[in-house]
């Protein structure tokens, strides 16, 4: 069983969907194979979402909003524990609600947007902690929601991730020209008749779905790394939004798989390894390609 930190909560997940086995050695091998396949699938599914949506987050400079939605979604995780439904599923409506709240509060309440984000960011976390403390017993994989654990992604989560990916891809394909118009110049888009604010809210909802997808991989606290770093690295290689999306899917997948492998190799937490790999690649890319010389 790889990953010492992972094994602390792995058994709870493993026994839940126990494989039929005849002897202990086989079990370890099969398990290892099974969850590694799941982890790889999760890495690829997460990469698709954060590659596409991360590009919007970076070019529209709403990284702080992404962070706010991610942290607020922890409230949904806590609520899931409390009412006894799958925390990741419960995080979906919760993070969408916080995305809409961030989008609306800043406009309606004449509050500075970053103030609104900061408040919702902290409120979501506070709600999550409150719900968890109200839940009887110990929350065994709480830590994995905060910091991610790609090795414990259950098969049921993979289908949720796939569904979210499909939703994100379909919406972005349908609204590509509108999203480009509002991210480049929201005011001008409004003037030419694009319902800019409504579409901005749709974009925030897509960020919320991406956050949910990434929770299993890197956790709510580290989500912001996968939302920004792959897009920021790919920005150095292209001036085209579509190419930037494809490249950042590739980078996100590479970071996740490399981080996963390193965490297996050195027995370190997977979420933090993925984020560290991403950060190091970003630093290297900003050193080798300053001056935009590699763009095509």
């Amino acid at each position: 069983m790889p990953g010492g930190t992972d094994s602390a909560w792995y058994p709870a997940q493993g026994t839940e969907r126990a494989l039929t086995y005849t002897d202990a050695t086989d079990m370890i091998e099969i398990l290892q194979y099974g969850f590694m396949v799941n982890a790889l699938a999760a890495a690829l599914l997460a990469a698709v979402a954060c590659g596409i949506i991360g590009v919007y987050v970076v070019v529209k400079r709403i990284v702080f909003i992404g962070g706010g939605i991610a942290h607020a979604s922890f409230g949904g995780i806590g609520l899931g524990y409390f009412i006894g439904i799958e925390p990741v599923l419960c995080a979906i409506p919760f993070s969408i609600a916080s995305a809409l709240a961030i989008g609306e509060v800043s406009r309606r309440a004449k509050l500075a947007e970053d103030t609104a984000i900061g408040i919702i960011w902290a409120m979501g976390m506070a709600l999550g902690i409150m719900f968890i403390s109200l839940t009887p017993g110990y929350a065994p994989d709480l830590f994995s929601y905060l910091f991610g654990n790609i090795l414990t992604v259950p098969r049921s989560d993979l289908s949720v991730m796939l569904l979210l990916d499909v939703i994100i891809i379909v919406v972005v394909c349908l609204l590509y020209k509108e999203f480009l118009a509002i991210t480049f110049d929201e005011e001008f888009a409004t003037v030419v008749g694009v319902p800019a604010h409504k579409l901005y809210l749709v974009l925030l909802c897509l960020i919320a779905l991406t956050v949910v997808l990434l929770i299993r991989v890197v956790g709510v606290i580290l989500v912001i790394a996968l939302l920004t770093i792959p897009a920021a690295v790919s920005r150095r290689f292209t001036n085209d939004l579509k190419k930037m999306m494809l490249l950042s899917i590739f980078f996100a997948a590479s970071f996740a798989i490399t981080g996963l492998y390193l965490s297996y190799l050195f027995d370190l937490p997977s979420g933090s390894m993925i984020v560290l790999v991403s950060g190091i690649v970003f630093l290297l890319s900003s050193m080798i390609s300053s001056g935009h010389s590699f763009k095509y």
Partner: protein
Amino acid sequence: MDINNEIIGLRNVWVCYGGVPVLEDVSLSVHRHDFLGIIGPNGGGKTTLLKVVLGLVKPNRGEVVVLGGEPVEQRKRIGYVPQHSLFDPDFPISVMDVVLTGRAGKRVFGGYTNHDRELAQGALAMVEMLPFKDRQIGRLSGGERQRVFIARALAAEPEVLLLDEPATGIDMHIQTEFYELLERLKKEMAIVMISHDITAVSIHVDKIACLNRRLFYHDSKELTSGDIEATYQCPVELIAHGIPHRVLREH
């Protein structure tokens, strides 16, 4: 001037931000084929005036009529060229894609049509920027970028063009070309241009208004020295550019 010819009509418009008036009792009428320059000091409400016309700012009092209807309904028919200094030059977008956003509101869902692309190309050709269509927007000079933003406004097939400080940060000799472009455009649409540069504007436009919270406008190119002093709140020396360019009445 009959009322049917009126493209933009403001009647007794007041705009206040937090109780402080930015526009006071502004009335203005822009007609087809007008080329109006609005001058005034920074913070005098020039951009706010354009945003009122575009329906982006709702006046606290007064009436705004654009092309015979509500600004929010009619603004699709206005070509808007905002202050270019407000853009993120690092945004990963090509010149062609910027111009195409002028067509983004024509149809929801799906990509641009061939018709959209033809119009965008035509608009780029009009401002002589077609050879730059694949260039990233940040890799253009200030003057070139300004042309692209005009092309973007033209791609929407507007009936009136609103320009917000279009000449800021552009070299003198490029400014001349820029005003020549406006000369060509004014044959097809009304143009309203705001600027804080009195001299440059006064040479090229057909009519001038002065704005510093209050608007001074006589539906002509003439302003009294009293208008200018009231606008800038200090005596401003104006150079008379011979009879064709005279801004001040002989005094």
